[in-house]
């Protein structure tokens, strides 16, 4: 078998390789925008059809948990950004700890979300399983909660994937950090920030409607 070096290389240089990887992540984020975009579109269609039901549904959500989660997620995004910023072989240890801290905050987010879900379950707000709300606004409220559960569940799934990414990177960076790992870290950070941004949109769509008036 011929030596690998007998062939033209895949990349002209290391920055060429790294930028290629990052472009991949950006394109991936573009698909994610459209994925959540479809959901948000559905949200607006129904909110337009049932403004009062949506406002009422929104008032049933746990705004304290939602707000706490926003803070948790923003903090973890900050830690990840920090890790990317200071990444170098010398700082491998700090980077590792920053990533682990960020991943832990991610887990806190998931936990809080779980508490929130269980409270909604107790209040019979889960459509399909035990939704119990009568009255003229029931349809709107139910649709609101359909959106709420589908969107937050998909978001939580993204969080879980992100947490796995961060932990994997934390383990790798501790050992032998190179520019290749920096690129991987940077791409993972892009993903984590994206998940964060999605949450901020969801926060505004889920918790805020109908609150200002009461």
């Amino acid at each position, binding site marked *: *078998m*011929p030596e*690998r070096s*007998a*062939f*033209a*290389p*895949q*990349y002209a240089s290391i920055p*060429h390789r790294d*930028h*290629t990887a990052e*472009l*991949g992540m950006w*394109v*991936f984020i*573009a*698909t*994610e925008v*459209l*994925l*959540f*975009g*479809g*959901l948000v*579109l*559905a949200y607006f*269609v*129904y909110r337009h*059809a*049932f403004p009062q*039901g949506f406002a009422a549904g929104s008032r049933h959500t746990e705004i304290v948990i939602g707000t706490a989660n926003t803070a948790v997620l923003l903090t973890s995004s900050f830690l990840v950004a920090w890790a990317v910023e200071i990444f170098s072989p010398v700082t491998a240890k700090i980077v590792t700890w920053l990533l682990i801290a960020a991943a832990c905050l991610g887990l806190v987010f998931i936990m809080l979300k779980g508490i929130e879900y269980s409270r909604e379950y107790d209040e019979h707000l889960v*459509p*399909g*399983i035990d*939704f119990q709300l009568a009255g003229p606004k029931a*349809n*709107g409220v*139910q*649709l609101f909660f*359909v959106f709420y559960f*589908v969107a937050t569940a*998909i978001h939580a799934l993204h969080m879980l994937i992100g947490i796995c990414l961060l932990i994997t990177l934390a383990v790798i960076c501790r050992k032998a950090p190179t520019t290749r790992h920096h690129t991987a870290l940077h791409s993972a950070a892009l993903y984590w920030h994206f998940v964060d941004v999605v949450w901020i949109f969801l926060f505004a769509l889920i918790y805020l409607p109908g609150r200002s008036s009461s």
Partner: protein
Amino acid sequence: MSDKNYLTTDYTLRSWFLTTDHKRIAILYFASLIFFFFIGGAAATAIRIELATPQADLVSSDVYNRLFTMHGIIMVWFFLIPSIPNTLGNFVVPLMIGARDLAFPRLNLMSWYIFMLGGCITLFAILAGGVDTGWTFYTPFSTLYSNSYVIVAAAGVFIAGFSSILTGLNFIVTIHRLRAPGLTWYRLPLFLWSLYATSVILVLATPVLAITLLLMATERFFGVGIFDPRIGGDPLLFQHLFWFYSHPAVYIMILPGMGVINELVSCFSRKEVFGYKFVAWCSVAIAAVGFLVWGHHMFVSGQSLVASLVFSFMSFIVAVPSAIKVFNWTATLHKGSIHFDAPMLYALAFIGLFTIGGLTGLFLACLAFDVHATDTYFVVAHFHYIMVGGMVTAYFGGLHYWWPKITGRLYSEYWARTAAVLIFFGFNLTFFPQFILGAEGMPRRYHVYPPEFQVWNVLSSGGAAILAVAYLMPLFYLGYSAFHGRRAPANPWNAPGLEWQTSSPPPEFNFASQPVVTRAPYQYNEHFQAEPQNA
């Protein structure tokens, strides 16, 4: 250097199923697609046999529903969408840009596994009892009334969608970042422009389909009313979301075909593609405007008249870049020194069939006519002219063109030409009568019909028999050539593209040294000499 090529570097099964070589992955896709094509084709055969008589003598109406659904789902999602991009594209993209592989080789392998997973789940749904919703999964039928395996089939399609997204992503990044020195955008072969545009659609439209199917499954599974009007849901929203993906998806199916035709037409008329930049940007324009016309599938759905008018208008606009391409192919042929090799016959068939399909698309884009033709065989004929007459024909053309590169062998020209002519003939006999049936009012998706329609249906079924034979022929002569054909030279067509400058079949990493591009593509002329090959 050793004379090993990508096929002979290693023979173990493991080396195939864990390969990251884009060429081997292309072959994996190729084998899977042949499999799916035959399953979809078997369903089509059953449908056409049933329709040969006006009564229901072969299957019940329920089985008939499951048959055309299975045909549609398999053909659209497991054959047409992946066909050219994942087989020919996977094989030639790195070769055409002078790279040693796609940007993300492992992701590429993963795409194939995801695709197969989705395919197996869908096959399971079919074996377990089938689906009767039609390939469009329209709600509320799919969520409320259908008693078939809707969720399983949708899950299969959903998963296969990720494979599409990843392939699109890989192509975009590869074409952006890995072009050989000197290969500027305007020196890029037009096939790559079209694959690039296709990839953009894959990346931007497929996620919307994913979320739509997910909502549909949620509704069906939990009984919540997202699309069910009884609980406040909106069935039109499903159609909007679905066609927001599926109209662009028809361009996923046809743009790569158009790209292949550029390569073929210029190679076999020995001329530069006429209006290169126009053709290139038309791909992009089609991809962009294609996102704005989905409502032409909903003219009779109850959407507002204003919406219908806007969508009708936009549909006319999107026809313009398609027409420009047809004009440019004709202009390329004009005064060319035309060689009627098998790939060229397929290309010419494509141009004819695509033109008919596109023009009848304009009929359908006219509001008044569409109201008359909706859900009749006219629509069926229209999209088969585009998807089968266009796309599948282009696929066969491309396959014959790159076959010597892929296998290192030459096939029998005689049989290849015979098959091409038979396909053209069989296709027209199958689908042209359907325009007439549709115009006279025969609805689609019915298996019992008034006896006066029988003449045209018999013609159509007879054509389908010819078509079936013609589609089977390549299996034999190409299959034979793969093992016993004459050895192909590196550049059998004397074409200038980079892919022809490495040996046939190419070595594992494509090029011994980094190729450098110094001229525009399609420089065919009498003095053209292929650059020295590194064999």
